[in-house]
């Protein structure tokens, strides 16, 4: 066994979740290799620390939880489509209003004719008889 083989099996060696020939192979390697020996000690220490910090799974009334889950599934099946539908309709409405607003703005820009003196004088330059009169 080389170092790479041993490294991948160290966890299982520590947890004693390994077949006998592999275990023997690791032990033989560790006797010769100080790097892997050090790693084994460090890994054991790390796992001991991790093991001391455990989270209790909250206790539950499982019958009630199953019933609640089934009810939720039932509700989601019936009303589950509502959320995406409302979202889609909201998007369509926002788009429609924005488009309408944009169109109105555009129309106002086109129809707006400034009646300033500058414009009149500019038009006079074209020599339109009606305008001169």
């Amino acid at each position: 066994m080389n170092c790479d083989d041993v490294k991948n099996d160290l966890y299982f060696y520590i947890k004693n979740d390994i077949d006998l020939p592999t275990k023997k192979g690791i032990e033989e390697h560790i006797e010769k290799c100080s790097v892997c020996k050090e790693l084994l000690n460090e890994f054991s220490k790390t796992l001991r620390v991790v093991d001391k910090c455990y989270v209790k799974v909250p206790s539950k009334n499982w019958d009630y939880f199953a019933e609640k889950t089934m009810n939720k599934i039932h509700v989601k099946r019936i009303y589950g489509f509502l959320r995406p539908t409302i979202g889609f309709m909201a998007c369509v409405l926002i788009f429609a209003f924005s488009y309408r607003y944009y169109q109105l703005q555009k129309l106002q820009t086109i129809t707006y004719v400034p009646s300033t003196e500058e414009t009149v004088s500019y038009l006079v330059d074209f020599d339109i008889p009606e305008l001169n009169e």
Partner: protein
Amino acid sequence: MKVKVQNNFEEIIIKHQQKIYKFIFSFVKNENDTDEIAQQTFFNAFKGYKKFRGESSVDTWLIKIAINNIRTHFRKKKFFSIFKVLDNEEIEIKDLKDDLKSAEEVVKNKMISNKINKAIEDLPARQKEVFVMKHIDGLSISEIADILEIAEGSVKASIFKAINNLRKLLGGIDEL
């Protein structure tokens, strides 16, 4: 027919809910989020129940759905954390096996406990998944490989990398 499917599925929930709940909780460590993810998992399973061909066991199938929901949960959490100035959602205080003697010890143990959980949280996603599944949930290598759809060798390598990273992250913690 619908009623039959519903009854069958209710049996599945009753049979597997504890294992699925424990599995989700080992990642999320928050009761409310676990409730929500577990229910979402069973809802997704219900939707896909007709398509389930029994190629893997029901357990593995449900865990596969659960792990996808857990990933979605963490993605959402990461996204919304941008908008949070302060993250109020503290990981529930962990119990340490030691008998707690003084207030100072309680604080110290809480700090160590939080540091350990933070170290596990900070592992790269694949390493965290593999480590939690193996070390906390006690799944076999072949089960993990099947759930994550990776080779067994990759599972072993990820476990090694996870412990190696934990070793570095927890370097300052003396043995309790």
